[in-house]
């Protein structure tokens, strides 16, 4: 049996080796080639990240990956992981998620979450602005992805601007926006390294979360051996593979951008970072409390 894995990104994207190929190798190895995974790339089975969960639910694909942030109303609790300060120092995002999986599982009806992981931390990716303190971005136009990122930007005194990611390159170039709050992997994924000039890391700006889900009835239709093989592949281990690969991609994107000399890297000291933390951490708690997840956030932060 060949499972269809729909990916909205091109085949050379990080997810291919870290999740799709890994699943295919391990499943076909364990079942003697009976159960395989085939990737459909670049949105061949339907474009964009926003509808991927629904496509799995409707059986367009057996497996797919996506970002809860695009449909945040479906994932109020999972979104807590994205908030500034939610992932404590020294802990990985996927461990945090899987430690709290019982609280998050209800947000994935009709599917089995086979991998849940987080991105590298968000950074300021700016054009012509060196950000050292919150005053540096006050009044600037910053592109944000979702509602919580918009609140973070607003808490820092910036003007949050919404736009499709594919328009960001042009918008930075023409000065329509001054910068972006996102992970540094966008430097290579969306070619922002060509137009950005300054990157500031170390401020608590949150991060992105990702899911890979498997259609529940696809799983139910597997033989007992195939189910056993699937059970062995999915979960924390697959999530670690994804998160490690994401971090490696981000490190590479950042160092290649810095080495090329086209961008300047600003790494905030602990003191500098605290000035940002003081402003944005109330946003995290007020969001968590607004969805009845205050205790969840506290337990995540290790309090």
């Amino acid at each position, binding site marked *: 049996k060949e499972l*269809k894995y729909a990916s909205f990104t*091109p*085949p*050379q994207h990080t997810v291919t080796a870290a999740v799709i190929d890994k699943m295919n190798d391990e499943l076909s190895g364990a079942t003697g080639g009976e159960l395989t995974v085939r990737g*459909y*790339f*670049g*949105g*061949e*089975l*339907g*474009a*964009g990240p*926003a*509808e991927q969960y*629904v*496509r799995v639910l*409707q*059986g*367009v*694909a057996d497996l797919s990956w996506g970002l809860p942030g695009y449909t945040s109303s479906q994932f109020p609790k999972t979104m807590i992981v994205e908030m500034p300060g939610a992932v404590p120092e020294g802990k990985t995002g996927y461990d945090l998620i899987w430690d709290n999986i019982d609280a998050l599982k209800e947000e994935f009806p009709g599917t089995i979450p086979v991998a849940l992981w987080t991105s590298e931390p968000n950074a300021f990716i700016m054009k012509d602005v060196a950000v050292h303190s919150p005053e540096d971005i006050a009044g600037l136009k910053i592109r944000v992805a979702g509602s919580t990122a918009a609140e973070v930007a607003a808490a820092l005194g910036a003007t949050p601007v919404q*736009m*499709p990611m*594919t*328009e960001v*390159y*042009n*918008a930075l170039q*023409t*000065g*329509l926006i001054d910068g972006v709050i996102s992970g540094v992997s966008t430097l*290579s*994924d*969306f*070619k922002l390294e*060509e*137009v950005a000039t300054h990157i500031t890391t170390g401020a608590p700006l949150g991060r992105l979360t990702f899911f890979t889900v498997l259609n529940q009835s696809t799983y139910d239709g597997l033989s007992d051996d195939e189910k056993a093989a699937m059970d062995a592949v999915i979960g924390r281990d697959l999530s670690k593979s994804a998160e490690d690969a994401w971090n490696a991609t981000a490190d590479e994107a950042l160092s290649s951008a810095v080495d*090329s000399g*086209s961008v300047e890297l600003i790494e905030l000291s602990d003191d500098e970072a605290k000035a940002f933390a003081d402003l944005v951490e109330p946003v995290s708690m007020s969001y968590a409390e607004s969805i009845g997840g205050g205790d969840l956030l506290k337990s995540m932060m290790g309090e």
Partner: protein
Amino acid sequence: MSAAAVGLIGLAILLVLLIIRIPVAIAMFVVGWCGIAALNGIKAANGLLASETFTLASSGELVVVPLFILMGNVASVTGMSRRLYDAAYAIIGSIRGGLASATVVGCGGFAALSGSSVASALTMGKVALAEMNRFKYDDRLSTGVVAAGGTLGILIPPSTGFVIYAILTEQSIGRLFLAGVVPGLLLLGCFVLTVTLICFIRPAFGPTGPRTSMSEKARALVGAGPIVGVIVLTIGGIYGGLFSPTEAAAVGAGLVILIGFVSRTLSLRDLWVASRQSVVTTATVMLILIAAHMINPFLALSHIPSAVGEFLISLNLPVVGTLMIILAVYLVLGCFLEGFAMLVLTLPIFFPIITQLGIDPIWFGVLVVLTLEMGLISPPVGINVFIVKSVASDVPLSRIFVGVLPFWCAMLVTLAILVAFPQITLFLPSTMIQ
């Protein structure tokens, strides 16, 4: 039956449905749905029908479609388009096919503003077709010029086509944009040459007007002032970072409405009628785009592109031969597929072959975008031709296809020149530091 066989049968059925005059969108829906149902089950076909429909109908990028149509409609009801063409006629009307050449240049200018061929063809169609008709231009020439000229939108930067190519192949967007400039101007020049040639062979296609004095020219130019002002403000706003190309469409529409109200050439009722006509044209265009997106997953599931790729590798041809075959495949696929869908479907397969052979990826990107443009006007599924048809409903489609044929040939010549002389494409991006 193999998946590839199902795919080929599906394309054959699509061809038959189109030939017997089933509306284009309906035919693509039927073939796409049945093909996906055959290859992946009815549940998946239904799921895609719903998700492709809603995703495209709620697309933040495609909102330029109704906005530019509205701008074109208001510009024509207020007489702004008329005065623009009066000015063009006064200045270059005495040259054979002058207005058609001016329209091509206008398409090029609009292309520099919008990244989309659909938007270029729609807006220029709304503005230019009735006006060329007024000056007794043959409708084959006028529709052909707009359909072909509109495709410049994805060769002259900014271009959605290059952005998608860059992201799919990890190339530099900046280099691709620079690489598109000279080929875009070259193609524009070839189009003007084509217009001139047509009008020398068939003078009745683009009748010459009377010579005008300097003062007549100046007076006509002043009359076109408002619409020229709108265009300058819109382009300036984009490059000045005031708004995005998408928002520029709304700014343009807002400005022509404002000018119309202030100059009392637009009543509320006119605006309402223009808006109503705009949603009807939008429906035509969007239904075709949605239906085209049902064909894409069908062909992906049929694995035809990867079969072609494997075949190509097995042939073991020299570099030039492989490049020729790949471009030929793009020309054939372009007959059936919407441009961007084609990129997504084929690049993952062909791009590794290209890089293995040491072919310059920027050069290849420009060649691919040019073949994509040719696909936009080639029968049977020529999206730009359908768009022109949607704004010129009284011109038979067959006449539009005849009209674009010389321009398609001009594109083929341009493609040959670009293949023969890679420096034309590559010298500008090579000046970029890095």
